[in-house]
C-alpha cells in the first residue's frame, strides 16, 4: 500500500473510476449523517435518501421482475426472471410453468448489503445488480427484503433469510431440470448479505434443506480483535473501523461484543460446522482494499479447516462496492467467475449423474444429449476416453 499511516482520504480516488468514487462517497457521507452516536438511526431520512425502483413486469434488457408478498411472514421477495423468447405471454402467466423442463436453471436467493441497516430489495443499486445477475448467470434471482437493524436485531435477518429459502424451495414455478424435481438454489449476498447467506446455509445444512452453493461478496464478518488489515486500511477506502463497530452494535443483541457467533463465525464462541456434510460449496470474493479482508480470509481458512469446499476470488485492487457499476475489471471478473462457478456446480451435478451411471454399467449412449463442456482431467477421472 502506498504511503504511511497518515490517513489520506484521496487514495480512494486513485483506484476507482470517478462514477464509482462519487457513488460510494455519496453513500459514505449520507450514512455518516444517519448514524447517531447514541446508537439510534435516522430511519426516515435513510428511506428518503435511498433511491428505490418498483418492480417491472415489462422486460427490460431481457429481465422482468415482480414482488411477492409472503403472507405468512409479511416478507417481500423481489423475483427476477429472464423474459421468454416468445413475447406473446405476459410475464406473470409464466408462473404456471417451471423455469425449464430441459435444463437446470439456478435460482439465486440474494441478500442485499447495507451492514444490516441500509438498503432494501427495491433499492436501485441492488435492483440493477440483480438484473445483471439474471443475464450473466442465466439464473432466476430472488432478492429478499429482510428486516433491518437497529429496529430488528439479530436474529431477525437470519430468520427472514431462512423463511425466504423455505419459500423459494416450495415454489413450483422456480423448479427446473429434466425431471423438474426441485428448485436449484444458490445463496448469495454482499456485505451483510454475505453474512446472512452463511448463517442461512448453516441452518439449511442442519435441517436438510439443499443449497447448491454460497456466493459471498466481501461478506461482513468481524471480531473483537483488530486485525492487520483493519489497522492498515482504516479510513483509507471509504470505510472506517468505528463505522463497522457501530453497525455491529446496532445488529448484535444489546450488550454483546463482536465475538458473538453471528459476527465471528469461526471464533471460540461459535459452533463448529465441521460435521455439516451438506453445507454448500462456497465462492468467497474478497476486495483487496477492504479493511475486513483478514476476517474474510480467515473465514475461507475456517471453511477449509472444517472440511468444506471453498474457492477464493481475491481482487487485489478492488474496493468495497466495486460491483455496483460495470465500469471496471473487477466487476467483469466477478461476473465471469460467478457464471463459470454456477456452471461448475451444474457440471458436478451432471458429473454425479454420469459417474453413477458409469458405475452401474450404463452405456454412453444413455447419457443426456447435451453434455456440458468439461475439463480434460475430469473426463479422464470418470473413464471417458478422449478421441484423438
Amino acid at each position, binding site marked *: 500500500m502506498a504511503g504511511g499511516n497518515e490517513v489520506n482520504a484521496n487514495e480512494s480516488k486513485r483506484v476507482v473510476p470517478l462514477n464509482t468514487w462519487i457513488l460510494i462517497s455519496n453513500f459514505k457521507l449520507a450514512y455518516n449523517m444517519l448514524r447517531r452516536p447514541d446508537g439510534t438511526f435516522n430511519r426516515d431520512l435513510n428511506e428518503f435518501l435511498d433511491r428505490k425502483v*418498483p418492480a417491472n413486469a415489462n422486460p427490460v434488457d431481457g429481465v422482468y421482475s415482480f414482488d411477492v408478498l409472503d403472507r405468512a411472514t409479511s416478507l417481500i421477495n423481489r423475483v427476477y426472471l429472464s423474459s421468454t423468447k416468445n413475447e406473446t405471454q405476459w410475464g406473470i402467466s409464466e408462473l404456471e410453468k417451471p423455469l425449464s423442463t430441459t435444463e437446470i436453471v439456478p435460482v439465486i436467493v440474494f441478500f442485499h448489503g447495507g451492514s444490516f441497516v441500509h438498503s432494501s430489495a427495491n433499492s436501485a443499486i441492488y435492483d440493477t445488480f440483480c438484473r445483471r445477475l439474471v443475464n450473466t448467470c442465466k439464473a432466476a434471482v430472488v432478492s429478499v427484503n429482510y428486516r433491518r437493524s437497529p429496529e430488528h436485531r439479530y436474529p431477525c435477518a437470519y430468520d427472514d433469510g431462512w423463511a425466504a429459502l423455505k419459500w423459494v424451495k416450495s415454489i413450483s414455478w422456480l423448479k427446473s431440470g429434466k425431471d423438474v424435481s426441485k428448485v436449484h438454489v444458490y445463496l448469495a449476498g454482499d456485505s451483510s448479505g454475505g453474512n446472512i447467506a452463511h448463517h442461512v446455509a448453516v441452518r439449511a445444512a442442519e435441517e436438510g434443506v439443499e443449497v447448491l452453493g454460497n456466493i459471498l461478496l466481501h461478506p461482513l464478518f468481524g471480531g473483537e480483535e483488530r486485525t492487520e488489515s483493519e489497522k492498515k486500511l482504516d479510513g483509507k477506502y471509504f470505510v472506517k473501523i468505528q463505522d463497522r463497530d457501530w453497525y455491529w452494535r446496532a445488529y448484535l443483541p444489546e450488550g454483546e461484543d463482536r465475538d458473538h457467533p453471528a459476527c465471528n463465525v469461526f471464533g471460540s464462541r461459535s459452533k463448529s460446522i465441521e460435521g455439516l456434510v451438506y453445507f454448500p460449496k462456497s465462492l468467497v470474493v474478497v476486495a483487496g482494499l477492504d479493511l475486513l479482508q483478514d476476517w474474510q480470509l480467515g473465514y475461507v481458512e475456517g471453511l477449509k479447516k472444517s472440511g468444506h469446499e471453498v474457492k477464493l476470488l481475491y481482487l487485489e485492487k478492488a474496493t468495497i462496492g466495486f460491483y455496483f457499476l460495470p465500469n471496471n475489471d473487477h466487476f467483469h471478473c466477478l461476473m465471469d467467475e460467478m457464471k463459470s462457478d454456477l456452471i461448475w456446480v451444474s457440471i458436478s451435478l451432471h458429473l454425479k449423474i454420469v459417474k453413477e451411471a458409469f458405475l452401474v454399467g450404463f452405456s454412453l449412449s444413455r447419457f443426456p444429449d447435451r453434455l456440458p463442456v468439461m475439463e480434460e482431467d475430469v473426463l479422464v477421472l470418470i473413464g471417458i476416453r478422449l478421441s484423438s
Partner: protein
Amino acid sequence: MKRDRDRGNTEVAAAGGSSTGKLKMWEEQPQPDAGMDELFAVLGYKVKSTDMADVAEKLEQLEMAMGTTTEDGVSLLSTDTVHYNPSDLSGWVDSMLSEFNPTQIGISGHESSPCSSNLIYDDDLRAIPGGAIFSNYDNKRMKLQQPSPAAVPTAVLVDSQETGVRLVHTLMACAEAVQHNNMKLANALVKHVGVLAVSQIGAMRKVATYFAEALARKIYKIYPNDNSLESSYSDALQMHFYESGPYLKFAHFTANQAILEAFSGASKVHVIDFSLKQGMQWPALMQALALRPGGPPSFKLTGIGPPQPDNSDALQEVGWKLARLADTIGVEFEFKGYVANSLADLDVGIFDISPSNDESIAVNSVFELHRLMARPGGIERVLNLIKSLNPEIVTIVEQEANHNGVVFLDRFNEALHYYSTMFDSLETSGLTRPDSQDSLMTEVYLGRQICNVVACEGVERVERHETLAQWRVRMGSAGFDPVHLGSNAFKQASMLLALFGGGDGFRVEENDGCLMLGWHTRPLIATSAWRLRRV
C-alpha cells in the same frame, strides 16, 4: 405482446395488437436525458457527465467540513436540515455544503482549508490511472436501457396460490380475446372467470368480479350509466374511501404541506380547489394556518364542483361548514363555489382574483385532472387557465398508473395490477372491517373506476390515469417547473401512515422531488407540486 408505452404513438393496427415486436418498442423510446450519466441513471441519480468532476470535488469538501465538525453538528444535518430531491446529487451536495458555510459553494479545490494539506487538484480527479479502469470499456456491454417515462413499472404482489394465478391468467386471456375482437372466445372466458372467482376469497375475488363484470359489459356493449348523474353519490363514495385507508389523507396532507410552504409569509391566501367534493382537505390546512407564528393569513377558498341532479347547492353547504370551522379557530375566511360540468368549461374571468395581485394563490387538484384527457384539448385549456391565474403553487395528486394507454389490452393489464394492489391493501391493512359500510362503499368506488377504464371509450372514459413520469413531461412542456417536497414532508407523511396506515404495508417514497404512497413496493398515489417557469 406489444408494449407500446409512449404517448403520442399512433394506434396499432386493430387486428394485430400484439404484432409490434420488442425491438420496435426500444427504438421508439425517448432518449435518456441529454448529458446525464447513464450509469448513474439506472441507480436513480441524475448527474450530468460534465458535472462529475465538480460533484466529486464538492463531496470532498463536504467530507472535510463534516470531518471538522462535532458529532452534534453532523447530527444536525440529519435532524434539522431539510433535504430535497436526492436524485439531484449535485444539488444535494450543494445544499449540505451550504449548511456549513454559505460562501463555500462552488469554491474550487485551490482554496486553502485549515485541515487539509493534501488537496487534490482538478487534474488529479481526471487522471485516474491503473488497471482498475476498464479502458476498453465498451459502452454497449451490460448497458441497461432506461425505461421510457411512460412505461409503467408494475410491481405485482402475487397471491402465490395456484388458483389465483390461473384466475389472473384467464382474465388476461379474456382481455386479449377482446383486444383481437374474438368475442366468442371472450364470452367463454369471462364465464370461466366467474367460475374461478367463486373459489377465491377476499381481495382476489372482488377484483376478479369487478373486472369480469367490466369485461362482460365491454363484450355485450352494455355501457354503464352516464357519470354526471351520480355526482352526489360519487361524493359520498369518496367520503367512505377517505375513511377506509390512508390514501386520501396522504393526498391531502402532502398537498397541504406544499401549499403551506408556498404560502409562508403571505398575508392573503387563496386556494382554488378543482376537486372540492366535501372539502375534507381544508380543515387541516386551516388549522395549520391558524397556528402559524405571527397569526393566520386571511383565507379564501374557491371550490369547483359538478352540477347536482336536484339543483341543490352542495358547494355552498361545504362552504358554510368550513366557514363555521374558520370562525371557531379564528381564521378570516371567504368561500366561493362554482359549478362546472368540466374544468375545461372554466374561464379565468370567473375567479375572484384580487386585481392588486396581493394574494398568494394555490391551485389544488386531487384525482381530477386526468378526467380532462377524455376530450381533446381539455387538459391544455385547463393548464393555460392555471397559468393565467399566476399561482404560487399548483398541487396535483393522481393515481400512479397508466390507465390511458392506446391499446386496450395494455390498459387492462395495468388496471388489473393496480386495482389488485389497491384491494389487497384495503383488505390486508385491516383498517376497516370487511363488511363495514366504509369497506363496501370503497369497493364500489373502486369498482366504478375499474368499469370505466375497462368498459368505456371516448368521452365516457374519464378515468384516464397517467403516471408521475407522464405528468412530469406534460407539466414541463406546459411551462411549469417542479417544486420539490422535502424530507420534512416525507417524515410527517410517514408519521401519518403510522397513525392511519394500519400495520406496516403502506410506505412513503421519494421520487425526484415528489412523494408517493405505496403499498409495500408498489406506488399507488403520487403528489407533485409545480410553479410557473420563470423566464
